[in-house]
């Protein structure tokens, strides 16, 4: 693995924890949202928005920007926290999430919120849409990269595999899929509800290159994304093993925290834990 500057890693880890706290604050304030999947994906999203993505918040629709599709759109609080922190809109907007006059919809809406590249929320669309974006970039001779973040439970849906199959045919060379593999979905553990193993082998059978990493290891995330960009002969998926509810002990690996907001006591305990981790 490439060596990264310690301060870069520490900074990104702090950003991830900040996004965790912001996401929980939004969900607590609104008393709605999906805490578990925000906490599990926070390190990946922090790596993308604070290091990887070629973006310019002053030009949200800049044609040459990298694209990010949050295919697991229910982690909207996490995306909104990252976009606000990058300056796409004021962080004070976050506390108005879900209000009628606020641009922040329950699930991301590309027409209302600056920086949202694609509307999402119904699971499964990201890869096929990302493929279209990537093929268009190739036709237009643009060098932007498209990243798609999806959940493991999401991969139970057939449209995901239609997209995966089509990517193998067209191999756009500028698309990276990242799976937030936390093994928990709304009704329980993914391995109970509808097992996806052998998960990596399924992607390989569809002629994808698989990079397995720990999804809370910032060095591994950065390194895997760089490696993925360098592989051109096949589409690449980074399977990031994560912990649903990561960082809040009583939320970790618990399906009930998929889509339930914390009460006051729980929220304060959660923030205390996340603050204690040096964020």
């Amino acid at each position, binding site marked *: 693995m490439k060596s990264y500057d310690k301060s870069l890693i520490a900074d990104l880890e702090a950003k991830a924890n900040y996004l965790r706290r912001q996401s929980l604050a939004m969900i607590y304030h609104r008393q709605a949202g999906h805490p578990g999947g925000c906490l599990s994906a926070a390190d990946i999203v922090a790596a993308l928005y604070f290091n990887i993505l070629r973006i310019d918040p002053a030009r949200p629709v800049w*044609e040459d920007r990298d*694209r990010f599709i949050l295919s697991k759109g229910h982690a909207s609080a996490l995306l909104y926290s990252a976009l606000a922190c990058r300056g796409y809109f004021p962080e004070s907007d976050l506390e108005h999430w879900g209000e009628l006059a606020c641009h922040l919809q329950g699930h991301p*809406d*590309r*027409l209302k919120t600056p920086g949202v*590249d*694609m*509307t999402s*929320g*119904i699971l499964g*669309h990201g890869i*096929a*849409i*990302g*493929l*279209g*974006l*990537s*093929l*268009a*970039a190739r*036709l*237009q001779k*643009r060098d932007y990269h498209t990243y798609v973040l999806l959940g493991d439970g999401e991969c139970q849906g057939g*449209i995901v595999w*239609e*997209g995966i*199959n*089509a990517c193998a045919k*067209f191999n756009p060379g500028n698309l990276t899929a990242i799976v937030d593999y936390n093994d928990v979905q709304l009704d329980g553990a993914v391995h109970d509800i509808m097992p996806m193993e052998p998960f990596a082998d399924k992607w390989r059978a569809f002629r994808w290159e698989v990079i397995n990493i720990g999804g809370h290891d910032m060095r591994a995330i950065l390194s895997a994304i760089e490696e993925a960009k360098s592989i051109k002969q096949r589409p690449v998926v980074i399977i990031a093993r994560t912990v649903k509810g990561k960082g809040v002990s009583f939320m970790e690996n618990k399906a009930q925290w998929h889509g339930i907001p914390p009460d006051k006591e729980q929220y304060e305990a959660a923030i205390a834990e996340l603050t204690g981790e040096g964020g």
Partner: protein
Amino acid sequence: MANLAMREAYGRALADYGAANPRVVALDADTASSTLSNFFEKRFPQRFFNFGIAEPCMIDAAVGFALAGMVPFANAFAALAALRALEQVRTCVCYARTNVKIASSYAGVSDFKDGPTHHAITDIAVMRSLPEMTVIVPADGSEAAAFVPLIAEFDGPVYFRLNRAATLQVSQPGETLCIGKGIVRRQGQDVAIIACGSMAGRSMQAAGSLASQGIQARVIEIHTIKPIDRDMILQAAAGTGAVVTAEEHTVIGGLGSAVAGVLAAGRPVPLAMVGIHDAFARTGPDPESIMDACGMAVADIVNAALSVINRKKA
């Protein structure tokens, strides 16, 4: 243009337009030699993408192309584009308002050989109900061809409903089409027949038959089901006092329902709907036979006209 099969007129027009507009890409779902998007494929292989029998994936990929500023024409059998891929169309095309053009071929009972699995008799109803969607149903091959540039240059999602075969020619050479504007195909003051698609030609035949009985029917072609030409429909109701609608589609939610909504709100007059009445059609030797057998015969239009004229007098 000669009275080509609608799919051929469309396919040739898309290929021709592709030369003028490099932003156009065509996608298909293993039906390119049926929808005739393969005319485009032959001329612009780099801008043609076949997704196999996976219409939802094709629509999502079209969304991606649109996000990047391309103008994707997604080609498929209507039965699949409007049903199997419906969630993609609702969420990623309409709600996200991406500039995707869905060229939905083999609509109505076009696929006479395969029967009701491959008929599309609910697609207008479904697509019309989606916010942001524009629904266009050309009446003949010439119109299908003429709409291609208009649709490509229109900003927003379009559902473009095409027949497989040639339909009765109703359009005139050189006439101007405008999205959202109906066309008076025949003047008359006793009854108005408002039709779309293949039923426009049949409505002209019905009007001829009515004329021989001394009844002057106004025939209005509504190619844009949404947004519908309210003014023309209300003028027809005011000018004739009785309305018949005719469509190769179920009467639930289609053109007839759209016209009924306009009339009920603006100028209630006796109305009868010609179309399929809450049933599946059946296999037959050709589309015309199926239409005749399933309530869409010229005689059905004539009888509907006579009934609304009687109700007007009552």
